[in-house]
């Protein structure tokens, strides 16, 4: 596929999604504002959606059942470990080295009056729902690929079979369609990174689409995860950069007086490329989750069962699109990483 057309296609898709989010966001905020005045506790889709796509210190199973996850707090007073069950869904505070309170799934240090204690420097390293989900995805990846790898040893020289024959085309796809066309003969060194990225993003996207426990998390739609992946790309690209890459940034073949403009532009380019990766993955996956949850919320907003067929039809439609997006985003992220690496290791300058 042509690289330019991918960018264009992604841009259009991205714009469409932003438009959908904006359209959907306006009525929700209107609803939530209206509801403030009423006596009965009204359904607030914004809250529900934000809770679902955000991170949490609990892993929700079904109904009132949830798994409390371990909390790890690193503060200026040292490390602390405790279970998130101590907060009792944010109703109670917990007296550790500081007095902690769970507000909107965030742990804050509070003073005696219950207001945020801004003097306390606390960093939350908790095993949140996303961390746990990430480990689950990784455990699946370990299980799948180490067993597949074992198959290559036991079935040496034979045709692939079972799970192996399902995974091999994907591995070959990453190698033949992503790595080799973009990086060339130096691709071997980058294959582990590209494959790990591709399968990690793919499995996280797919598990996130499962609406019930243990799926339904929004891992690849979390900015912290996408920023980490983007930074890994940034570091890999810049550590792979050869003299032509750096010459292109700091000493391009243009009149000297243009350097004052071109060098900062190129340096912005170095940052903006992984930045775009981060935003693209985050926005696509989050947008997908928001759209699906919004469509489900319609039933509760209209407060009638007659709305459900409409919602279900649209949700099924969205889910099929999200299935495509799950593969597409994993592909795009890996593809662009390979492209940037390819630009950095290219031998001749243009």
């Amino acid at each position, binding site marked *: 596929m042509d690289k330019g057309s991918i960018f264009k296609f992604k841009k259009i898709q991205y714009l469409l999604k932003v438009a959908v989010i904006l359209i959907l966001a306006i009525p929700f905020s209107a609803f939530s504002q209206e509801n403030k005045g009423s006596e009965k506790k009204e359904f607030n889709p914004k809250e529900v959606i934000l809770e679902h796509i955000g991170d949490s210190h609990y892993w929700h199973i079904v109904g009132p059942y949830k798994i409390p996850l371990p909390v790890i707090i690193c503060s200026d007073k040292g490390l602390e470990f405790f279970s998130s069950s101590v907060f009792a869904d944010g109703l109670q505070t917990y007296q550790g080295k500081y007095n902690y309170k769970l507000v909107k799934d965030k742990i804050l240090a509070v003073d005696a009056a219950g207001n945020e204690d801004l003097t306390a420097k606390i960093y939350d390293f908790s095993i949140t729902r996303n*961390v746990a989900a*990430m480990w689950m995805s990784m455990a699946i990846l370990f299980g799948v690929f180490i067993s597949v790898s074992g198959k290559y040893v036991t079935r040496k020289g034979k045709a692939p079979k079972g799970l192996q024959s399902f995974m091999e085309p994907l591995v070959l796809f990453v190698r033949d369609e992503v790595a080799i066309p973009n990086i060339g003969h130096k691709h071997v060194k980058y294959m582990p990174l590209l494959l790990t990225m591709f399968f990690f993003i793919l499995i996280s996207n797919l598990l996130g689409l499962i609406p019930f426990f243990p799926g339904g998390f929004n891992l690849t739609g979390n*900015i912290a995860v996408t920023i980490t992946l983007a930074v890994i790309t940034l570091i890999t690209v810049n550590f792979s950069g050869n003299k032509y890459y750096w010459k292109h940034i700091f000493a391009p073949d243009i009149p000297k007086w243009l350097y004052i403009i071109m060098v900062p532009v190129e340096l912005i380019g170095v940052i903006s490329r992984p930045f775009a990766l981060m935003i693209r993955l985050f926005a696509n996956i989050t947008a997908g989750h928001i759209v699906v949850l919004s469509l489900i919320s319609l039933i509760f907003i209209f407060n009638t069962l007659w709305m459900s067929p409409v919602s279900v039809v649209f949700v099924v439609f969205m889910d099929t699109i999200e299935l495509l997006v799950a593969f597409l985003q994993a592909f795009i992220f890996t593809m662009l990483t390979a492209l940037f690496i390819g630009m950095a290791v290219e031998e001749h300058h243009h």
Partner: protein
Amino acid sequence: MELVKPEIGLVFWTTVSFLILLFILRKYAWTPILASISERELSIEDALSKAEAAKDEMARLTNENDQLLKQARIERDLILREAKIVKDQIIGEAKDAAAKEGAKMIEKARVEINSQKAIAMADVKNLVAELSIEIAEKVLRKQFEHPHLQDELVADLLKEVKLN
């Protein structure tokens, strides 16, 4: 804004976990998998090129066989032709020899016949001579029994002789 604010905890755990995932999968999954795949690809390529070479070899052998067959056929034809020539020659020679022998035998027979004939003729001549002499003797004896007849004859003879 909560959504686009990366949390330090998740960044930390993602970094640690992703790097561990990367290193473990690289060691235990990607390297062996990619090595096996490329090994298999090489073996397939090798097998294909070998098959191609075998096909070429086969074609070459078939060609050679054809050549050999053709040559053998030519040789066979040559041998047959030679044999035919030899046969004809032998037959011709035999015929000549037989004819010569026949002629010789005929000649011999002729000579034999001639000699036999000559002998027979000689015998016949002798017999005739003897018989003639016998007859002449008898005639003469008869003649000389009567003297007057002798005289008469002399007279006749004398009459016949013309004195010139």
